[in-house]
């Protein structure tokens, strides 16, 4: 489904600021996997997701989606297969456009953008229906600009936009990190629901160890540009947070350092 082979990313190569951020990542993601990713500050988690999405061309290595080599494909072409929700709630929507306009843009992802009307009444009805399932009261605010939404509402909206048309891969980068605990829990619950109902393949970076264990079928630990642990569904079931910390220390030879990490 998604395959990373020997992926290296070196930023600003050849300068004094050179940074070797991904150091030969190998990863095989199967159809239907829901992988949670944890790791310390600067481990390269976001960089790995950016590499998969195509924000930059990796320094070396290969990325394949469904056996197609996408290593050099730009973001907008890969977007046909990839849905994304970012850590910063402002990143996922056009803030000066309305909720329905944002949804309509996402709803027509992968189709050529023509001179047809940007939204139809039928779409509007459909959006109202899916929004009402979010239970955030957004179904009555189709014509509000998204700048007026709360962080949680925006993330829920972005999640909806990312999962229209069942992308092959859903990339979630700490998408609940900027939210208060209650909203974060709600958005996570929604994530699990959407991924489950649509049988999506997903990768989710989180700093919440408990979420990382509770959600998904696989877990990856990253440290300094390497995947140091790759835990499969069987192994994952019996683990608790202290186990996870122990495993991290054993594999990396140091303590987990992440100033946002939640241990309970």
């Amino acid at each position, binding site marked *: 489904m998604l395959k990373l082979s020997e992926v290296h990313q070196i930023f600003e190569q050849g300068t004094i600021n050179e940074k070797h951020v991904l150091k030969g990542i190998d990863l095989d993601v199967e159809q239907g996997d829901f992988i949670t990713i944890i790791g310390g500050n600067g481990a390269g988690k976001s960089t790995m997701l950016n590499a998969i999405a195509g924000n930059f061309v990796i320094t070396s290595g290969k990325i394949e989606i469904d056996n197609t080599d996408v290593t050099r494909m730009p973001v907008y072409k890969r977007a046909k297969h990839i849905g994304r929700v970012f850590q910063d709630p402002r990143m996922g929507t*056009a803030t000066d*456009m309305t909720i329905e306009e944002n949804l309509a843009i996402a709803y027509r992802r992968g189709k050529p953008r023509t001179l047809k009307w940007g939204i139809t009444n039928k779409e509007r009805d459909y959006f109202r229906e899916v929004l009402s399932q979010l239970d955030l009261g957004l179904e009555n605010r189709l014509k509000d600009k998204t700048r007026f939404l709360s962080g949680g509402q925006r993330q829920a909206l972005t999640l909806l936009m990312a999962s229209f048309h069942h992308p092959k891969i859903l990339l979630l980068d700490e998408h609940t990190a900027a939210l208060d605990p209650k909203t974060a829990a709600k958005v996570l619950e929604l994530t699990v629901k959407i991924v489950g109902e649509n049988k999506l393949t997903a990768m989710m970076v989180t700093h919440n160890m408990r979420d990382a264990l509770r959600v998904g079928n696989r877990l990856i630990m990253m440290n300094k540009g390497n995947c140091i642990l790759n835990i499969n569904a069987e192994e994952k079931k019996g683990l608790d947070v202290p186990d996870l910390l122990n495993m991290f220390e054993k594999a990396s030879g140091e303590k987990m350092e992440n100033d946002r990490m939640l241990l309970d």
Partner: protein
Amino acid sequence: MSLFINAGAQGLLWAVMAIGVYITYRILDIADLTAEGCFTLGAAVTCRLITGGVSPLVSTVAALGAGLVAGLVTGVLHTKFKIPALLAGILTMTALWSVNLRVMGKSNIPLLKKGTLLTMLSDMGLEKDVAAIVAGLILTVLVIAFLWWFFNTETGYVIRATGDNKNMISAQGVDTNKTIIIGVMLGNGLIALSASLVAQYNSFADISMGIGTIVIGLASVIIGEVVFGKRNILHSLIAVALGSVLYRIIIAIVLKLGLRADDMKLISAVMLVIALCFPGVRDMVTKNLKNSVKRGGSQNA
């Protein structure tokens, strides 16, 4: 009273230029200096063609076409060659100076007694400024109606989203190079179109008539938005057109107070400075400038 009619005429003729600036500056979030050269280009093309015996209507459409091409150059420099938008615009503007001289063959083309779109109206019995108001109004309404439709199409949606959030729109599968190019072309096409009408009103094209275009455009956009608001795209377009008229009225009043026509550019700049002294206004303007100086890429770390 005639002072206001004159200001209204100029405001409406220049309104389409202000709308062009609004498209690059507000919708695309790019400070595009192509405007300065592009305005002269529109006037130059129109006057050269009209003096060559081409019909005023065709000459006007040709100006629009020339503006689209100028925008295409800046758009390609910015997106394909990754040159910061501000610099890309300066490059095109500079190159256009020579292009404009080539088009005109000299630094000033008077239209003398040649027929123009405006004389066609005055031949019907309208006074010069009234004819300008009628022509400006028709053009402005047509342009606003067109843009209202265009920015509500699929393509219009993704162009608006490009200026709003590049990150989001490329994640939604849109090639932002394409949308930026279309937007910059559209903006400059309208600037040249407006210049064409202005030249027909003034009965001449001059090599330096584009100087100050961007300041006048920005002043109109900001005055329009501050005074009339910006609830949605249609509302904004109308506000910018009215802003252009208001700008001319302010200028007319200042001139009436004893300043000379030569002081126009100084007055324009000072007006913009005064507008920028309002904190909210300053924030929205400097944010845009910063974005234009930065390179196009969007990264998520």
